[in-house]
Structure formats: C-alpha cells, structure tokens
C-alpha cells in the first residue's frame, strides 16, 4: 500500500521541487497543502504519515503546525524543509517534535538518506 505523505509549502514551485527530490522508488500517495491550516486538515484526514513542512507560510506557519500536532498527540514523521537555516530555527523545530530539518533547495540524496535512517522502505 502506498504511504500517504503530505507536502506543505505556500509556493507551488517549492512543492514541485520537493516532490522531484523524493526517491523515485518510494511508493507514496502525495497530498499537497499551501498553508498550515490545509496541512492540519490533511493530517487529520490521515493523509500525512510523513509530512514535509515549510516554516514560512501565510495563515498558519510551520511552527504553528508543529505546536498543534504536539497538542493532538503527533502521529506523523515531520521533516521540516526550510530556507531559514539558523541553528536556533533547527533547534526549535526539533523541540516541537520534527524528526529532521532539510535545507532548501532540497538535495535528493539528503532526503533519501534521512528516510533510510528512519527505516522507511524505499
């Protein structure tokens, strides 16, 4: 069965770039979200076993999504994908339960390495 994954970024271009960087052998069903609220909706609908989450977004930003997920018992692997690479940002998202931080523009080898590290079947 394909793994339901969610790609959340306000830029359509950024979503395309990320989806292109995913391992081609990974059997996934991709849902896209353009802001944090859409991401939460998809998450609650069970469409986000793995979530790729941007930080800077309108409506609800990535930090807000992580905070809400924590309150709701976080049942998702969240990988933050951001251009904001300050060490403090990385620390904050990890405290909020994200498993990893990937820097934009996304390097496909980084994503694959990360997924393997967490035992995702590719």
């Amino acid at each position, binding site marked *: 069965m394909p793994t339901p994954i969610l790609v959340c970024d*306000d830029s359509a*271009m*950024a979503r*395309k770039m990320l989806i292109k960087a995913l391992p081609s052998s990974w059997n996934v069903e991709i849902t896209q979200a353009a802001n944090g609220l859409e991401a939460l909706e998809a998450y609650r609908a069970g469409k986000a076993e793995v979530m790729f989450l941007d930080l*800077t*977004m309108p409506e609800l930003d990535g930090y807000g999504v992580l905070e809400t997920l924590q309150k709701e018992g976080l049942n998702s692997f969240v990988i933050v994908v951001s*251009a904001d*690479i*300050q060490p*403090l940002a990385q620390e904050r998202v990890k405290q909020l339960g994200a498993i990893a931080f990937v820097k934009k523009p996304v390097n496909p080898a980084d994503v694959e390495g990360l997924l393997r590290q967490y035992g995702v079947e590719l």
Partner: protein
Amino acid sequence: MSQTLTSDQKDALQEVTNIAMGQAASTLATILSTFVTISVPRINIPEVSEIGSAISKMVGNGKEVTAVRQSFAGHLRGEAIIIYGQEGCRDLADLMGYDEDIDQSAERELLLDIANVLIGACLNGIADILQTGLTFAPPSIMAERVIINSLIDPTQLTWNNALLVEVNFTLEARNFSCHLVTLMPEDSIERLKQAIDTFMENF
C-alpha cells in the same frame, strides 16, 4: 512593453528570493547575534511610469528613510537599493547596544553591512537560477533621513525597470522591516524572465 510577470514566474521568483533571504537571515543572525525571522518576500514589477509611486506606496507615503545603494554587473546589470525606515535604524542601533548618541559612522557601517548581506543574498540567489555570477561594487549611502517620495526621481533613472522585493525581518521582539528595490534595464528583466521559464521547465 509590459514587464509584468505571469503568476508562475512570480511564484518562482518569490521562492528563489525566499531561499536567498533564508540564507541572508542566517548571516544577519550571526552579525547581530539575535534570532531573525523573515516573512515571505513580496515581489512586484511596476510599470516604468509608476516606479516612483510604487516604491513610495510599498514603503509608506511620507515616511522618513535612509537608503543604501549598490550596483552590480554581469549577465544582469543594474542597481540595488535597500531602504530603511528611520525607526528601524534606531531599533537596530538599540539592539547593537549603542546609546542615544549613536556614532554616525558606526550606524552607517551597520546599515552598509546589512545592505550588503541582503543585496548579495538576494541577487546571488537570482544569479544562481540564471547559472551565472554577478560582480558587486561596494555599497554606499544614497540618502539619509529623507522623505521616501523624494528618494527616487523616475526621470533621473539610468535603469528604468524595477523589481521590488519587500522583506520584513523581525529581530527578537522588534519589528524591523526594510525594502529592497532592484533597478535594471529592460534587457536584464527579459533575461531574468527567460531564465525563470527555463528553470521551471526543469520541474
């Protein structure tokens, strides 16, 4: 000739600027030893006749500003201008721990440093998608404590097309915003648009 962007081009340019600004924020955080948050940059290419008014509108009509300019050359050429609101300059000085009588040369140096980081990050990010490099002249103070509406006289512009990038930074609890204006000749804007199209076709 109209230089407006398609919504795809705008989205792509916004994302490229966003990535570049993330890198700039990281550098600024080091310079200022504080946490810097950035908003999603807003991009606009106004009609040539409306550059002056578009800039005043973006910054806020009647606002007192200080501006830094820096020229660049290469596959794209033109001039980039960073516009700081006067309150922002004070907040920055505050954050840097200067007292009330901030030394003028220290303040100028700080404004030049920040402009250099922002302009370099933004334009190098854009140059990356063009797969080219740019060279920069050192930044210089363009105007100090002037009213925004008198900063740019459209009839005096050497480069008559503009790319406006609005970036808002928050430094710790302070709101500090500044604006980046890039002025380029028409052939550079055309090259930029072609490069974005090529870049997007790869995705």
